[in-house]
């Protein structure tokens, strides 16, 4: 049963990481810090999934990036683009609609 739960949970959560990244990165941040932030916000994700994902979102022009070389360790900072912010708004609305739909289902039964 725990395996079955893990399987379905993974299916359910797939895609929520993208939305969470787009929302969090309205304030610029770099990969490793974002990993911790996602974890603390309840969106656990593996590093080997997140790092390639950030680059994919950048390629899709949903994120922009800048190298910050002011500190001793240069870091790549990602930030949600206007296009990314618009997509995040739409996806958030979809999420809320789903949430409302689930509530309606539960009240019916």
């Amino acid at each position: 049963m725990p395996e079955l739960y893990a399987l379905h949970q993974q299916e359910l959560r797939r895609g929520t990481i993208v939305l969470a990244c787009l929302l969090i990165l309205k304030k610029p941040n770099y990969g490793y810090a974002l990993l911790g932030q996602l974890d603390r916000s309840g969106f656990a994700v593996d590093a080997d999934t997140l790092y390639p994902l950030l680059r994919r979102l950048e390629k899709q022009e949903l994120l922009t990036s800048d190298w910050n070389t002011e500190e001793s360790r240069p870091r790549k900072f990602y930030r949600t683009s206007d296009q990314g912010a618009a997509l995040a708004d739409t996806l958030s609305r979809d999420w809320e609609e789903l949430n409302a739909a689930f509530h309606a289902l539960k009240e019916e039964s």
Partner: protein
Amino acid sequence: MTATTLTDRYVDLTLRRLPARQRPDIERELRASIADAIDDRTDAGSDPAEAEHAVLTELGDPARLAAGYADRPLHLIGPGLYLDYIRLVVAILVIVVPATAGATGFLGILRGESAGSVIAGTLGTAVTTAVHIVFWTTLLFAVIERTASLRTVPARQWTPDALPQPPSRRARHGTVIAESVVAVLFTTFVLLSPVVSTQTDAAGDPVGILSPWLWETGVVYVFLGLALAGLGVTVAKSYLRWSVPVAVAAVLLSVAGTTLLIWIAAGDRLLNPAFTDAAGWNSDVAYWTNAGLIIAAVLTVVHAVVETAAGFAARSWVTPSWKSMIHTIVDGVSLRTSRR
């Protein structure tokens, strides 16, 4: 600097699987991420070497990470192409393998090779052809899977028209009756052939058309047994639902019966030499009778194999449609190669 750290080796291995122009940027970011993660662990009181080991363990197989960066699939052929792939492989296999194997066997017989070497040559060609077909088709689809421009072709829309049509009840009765009549006539002819004949020997006894060797060795009874079992399979196919055991039994019986026939014909053990002499037949008659039987046997096997393959695909008793099968191949090949 000769001492390479675990991190160096990890990053190197990851970058090696990436396009050169992406490497510098990814290297810089990956190294920073790994260093940050190690720092976090050492700040919490972990030993530096242990921390590095733990961080890299968490990042996982470099090949997987690189595939993520390069957006490369971690499968040979994905679900988008899988059905097209399987259909194409099966369609080519069932058409080309029996054709090339049959041609090899036929040429072997024409060259007058022994039965053993004809069978070995035929099987060898069948295996080689099948391996080539599966290998090259798989390679083609693996390339398509990895070439974005080839994958943009929309899959052909499936429609209910493609559903196989079950044979009607009357058609099924008809098949069973026809096959039973043929089987009874055939068995009667074979069993009576030693005693009922147009030719007689010096003592006035009948000379059977079929070689006495068949009776001496009992091969004729094996052959008739296989034919009757085949009739049983036809009955099962007509009145039972499709099932793997019956489907496998059907194709095995067909292959066994035809192989036996090919073996008999290839060894020139079918016709009674005494009969052909008595009837004054040219020696070519026996030769072409054998050749004709072998061709018919090969065609029967081809049909049985195609029917079984189509049956497995549809999970029902279907009659293979050569037209749609050739369409699948032509469509599959032209869709993938011409339109980009």
